[in-house]
């Protein structure tokens, strides 16, 4: 393998490649987010023996674009009693962390460009997984801020509920993947993918089934998806923290939710399913795995009723947290003995 491309050995090529990778990932993420809304309506429609969107374009394929355009030209309402700066800042504070988390997800092996090795990943951090957890944690600030700044009782309740839910499940999620690091001996996502290379049976989903289940369920809770969507609970909190939002600010919340789904799907694929490993070229394998998890998340929305708040807290602290700790103890015992 030739030398790694870096800022010191060819700055112009480095910056060009970096910008190309960033733009490609950003555009693909935006496209997936836009069409995830279409897929969700279409799939849930068919699961409920409806057709979903059909009118805009062939098979309703232009629906996400029409929705986006419509939201652009809607009135931007800022309630008179709201804290203006925080109210405007909050949707951005949710969207930006959701979009930058993908930076550490590797979407292929190494390629050679202009005589240098280039990893197919925006940023290969030694502490990639810490970066992901930190960004997921940052998203909570946006939700709490949105709930508080709206100066609306429903929003405040939604925001606070969400904060308690996310921090409860972040613990179990963070603990469940410790066993993965014990096996991979690294926190870099690239290193974790390499540790699972070889055959399909090296994937950590086979050696760590308990960690996989706990991490998947807690991740669903962390991104506030059904059946853990209590912060927005339409029927009791009128959409919770985004009740007062309209126009593009509302669209940012919406996009952040779907971007978070993509991120969670990508992280689970990387940690437990070998990331870009598989029969096709790397990127396609990763995308297929992401689409699979997105489908499961949508399927869950069509299937499960919402849990109660006391059930949610019970599961987070008394089921998943002890399970994750138990999994670490078992993994440690197996490795040592």
């Amino acid at each position, binding site marked *: 393998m030739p030398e790694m491309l*870096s*800022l010191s050995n060819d700055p112009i090529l480095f910056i060009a490649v*970096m910008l190309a990778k*960033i*733009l490609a990932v*950003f555009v693909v993420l935006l496209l997936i987010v836009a069409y995830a809304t279409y897929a969700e309506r279409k799939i849930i429609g068919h699961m409920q023996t409806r057709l979903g969107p059909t009118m805009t374009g062939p098979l309703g394929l232009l629906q996400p674009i029409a929705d986006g355009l419509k939201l*652009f*030209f*809607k*009135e*931007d*309402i800022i*309630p*008179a*009693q*709201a804290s203006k700066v925080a109210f*405007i800042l909050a949707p*951005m504070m949710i*969207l*930006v962390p959701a979009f*930058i988390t993908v*930076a550490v997800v590797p979407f292929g092996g190494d390629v050679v460009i202009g005589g240098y090795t280039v990893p197919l990943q*925006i*940023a290969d*951090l030694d502490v990639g*997984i*810490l970066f992901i957890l930190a960004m997921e944690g940052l998203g909570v600030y946006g939700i709490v801020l949105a709930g508080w700044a*709206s*100066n*609306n*009782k429903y*929003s*405040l309740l939604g925001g606070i509920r969400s*904060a*308690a839910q996310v*921090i*409860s499940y*972040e*613990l179990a999620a*963070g603990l469940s993947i*410790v*066993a993965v*690091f*014990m096996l991979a*001996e*690294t*926190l870099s996502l690239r290193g974790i993918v390499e540790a699972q290379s070889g055959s399909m049976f090296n994937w950590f989903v086979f050696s760590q089934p308990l960690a996989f289940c706990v991490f998947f369920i807690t991740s669903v809770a962390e991104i506030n998806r059904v059946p853990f969507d209590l912060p927005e609970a339409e029927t009791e909190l*009128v959409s919770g923290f985004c009740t007062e939002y309209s*126009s*593009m*600010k509302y669209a940012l919340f919406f996009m952040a939710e779907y971007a978070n789904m993509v991120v969670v799907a990508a992280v689970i694929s990387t940690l437990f399913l070998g990331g870009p490993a598989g029969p096709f070229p790397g990127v396609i394998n990763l995308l297929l795995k992401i689409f699979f998890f997105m489908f499961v998340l949508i399927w869950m929305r069509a299937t499960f009723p919402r849990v109660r708040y006391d059930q949610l*807290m*019970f599961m987070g*602290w008394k089921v998943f947290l*002890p399970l994750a*700790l138990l999994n*670490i*103890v078992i993994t*440690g015992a197996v*490795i040592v003995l």
Partner: protein
Amino acid sequence: MLESYLPILVLIALALMFALGSVAFSFIFGPKKPSEVKLAPYECGMPLIGTAREQFSVKFYMVAMTFIVFDIEVVFLYPWAVVFKQLGMYGAGVMGFFVFVLIIGLAYEWKKGALEW
């Protein structure tokens, strides 16, 4: 080493530009017909009762405090997990004691009912 964070800075700038741009676009091109009722907080279409800046349940504080203790535990566990195979029996023993103390803490909280909702 720091140059591996450069792409993330660029991505943050791009995401911020996208967010700011789309909000600014809808602010400029959207209609603006504010009225007193439209700018009032939503409350089932009824006149407001009291303010939203009220006290909320103390249980949320309990959750937050417990979270801080356990989150620090998670932060300690990460570097330990990475070098676990090299540390061998000694590492397992030391961390086993640390986790045992924390499990006692969790059990105590459980017993006291701090985790009941």
